[in-house]
């Protein structure tokens, strides 16, 4: 595993830990993740992109997309298109949240980037930046 993918995997694991802690005990929650703990089925494709984590209640009353971004990929054009696609999708399924897991020192930059890509139709999407050391 390259250093870059190891960092990404670390962030995905912390993101999943946070999801499990915060949604522990909710009977109807299902988690899809690109991680062996959650079986072989990846989250569904959203606007041509597969998120790292998708959490939903069944029947659907809430939806959350979790994405991990490292220093090397957060500013790429692909990441911007990907996060915009996730915001577009979540705005159609309220109440919804986008959680962005980033290295601790990248959190301020992530906030600026997210603010720059949010449009008025995304106003009801709750966005959280989760910094991890």
């Amino acid at each position, binding site marked *: 595993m390259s250093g870059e993918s190891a960092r990404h995997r670390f962030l995905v694991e912390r993101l999943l830990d946070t999801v499990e802690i915060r949604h522990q005990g909710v009977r109807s929650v*299902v988690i899809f993740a690109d991680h062996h703990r959650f079986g*072989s*089925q990846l989250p569904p494709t959203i606007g041509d992109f597969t998120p790292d984590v998708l959490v939903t209640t*069944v*029947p659907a009353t809430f939806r959350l997309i979790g994405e991990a971004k490292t220093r090397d990929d957060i500013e790429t054009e692909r990441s911007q298109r990907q996060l915009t696609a996730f915001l577009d999708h979540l705005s*159609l399924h309220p109440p919804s949240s986008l959680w962005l897991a980033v290295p601790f020192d990248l959190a301020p930059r992530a906030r600026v980037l997210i603010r720059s890509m949010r449009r008025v139709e995304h106003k009801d999407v709750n966005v959280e930046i989760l910094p991890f050391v």
Partner: protein
Amino acid sequence: MSAGKLTFLPIADIELDRTNPRIRRFLENYEGEITNDRIALALDVAGGDDKDGTTTPAKLKNSILTNRGITQPIVVNKDTAGRLTCIEGNTRLYIYRSFVEEEVEGDWKMIPALLHEELGPSEVDAIRLQAHLVGPRPWDAYSKAKYLWELQYHELMPLEKIIAFCGGNRRDVTQAIQAYSDMESYYRPLCEADEFDTENYSGFVEVQNTKVKDAILRAGFTLTDFAQWLRDGKFKNRTGNRSLQHIRQLPQVLPNKTTRDLFLKKGIKAALDVADKPDLGSGLKNATIGQLARAITEAANSIPLEELRRLQEHPEDEAHRYIEDAMEALQYLTKQIQSGA
């Protein structure tokens, strides 16, 4: 044939049935020592996801693990020499063996079995025929979804537990519950009691695709509108039969005003005919139907394996619809030709 005796048997004493057709078809083509791994290969124990809702070995394994055992006993024959052979349930027996080998927690050394004594070949065949050629009658997709929804909503069974009991397929389970729930919420209120058509359930499965659902919501419609389209029969093929797979084409139809209006007035087929006029070169345009049919046959028969795999892995690829449309059009043309003969 005697009824057999329900009992627990030590798995170490039971032989896998090498005359079982599933095992035999593999062994007939195999030379060398018959190891457990090779029998596993024959039983396709490592088989992956199902495509048509059937039970795969992987699902069965997960389900047995969650249940801490099997709910349906295997069938065993004890011959005159006292040898025990599994005549039905070889995969389940193999899974128990693999759990012992892998030291999976639990008691996997004894297996529930229906024990027969000295069955003749015709009686063994009768058991196999009933088990595999007639088999238990599976529930239809709507009934399965209704049951899963009731487990979750009325029995308050945690979703993760339901998924585990169903062999770990979280996508199929959540999709079924959500489709059932949407159908009850949006479609049932539009129907008189005798109009509620469970065949429309597969339409609600199709709409669980994020691209489709998002396209409906983004175009300013709701799932009540979608339910109304189903009730009004907006998804029909050229011959007027219900064709719910066309729901997958809504993302092509709804964003454009012309095709959207056509869909709302005349249905999906009319909208797709306009949305998707093929861009044909002059060579294709001037070809006769016979030449095109031969070209399709040639292309289908020589499709590269890589391309076939790509199509299998991408059910959303437009080629699927082009192929289905071509097949439908050719069947319709054949019928027309035959009716005039």
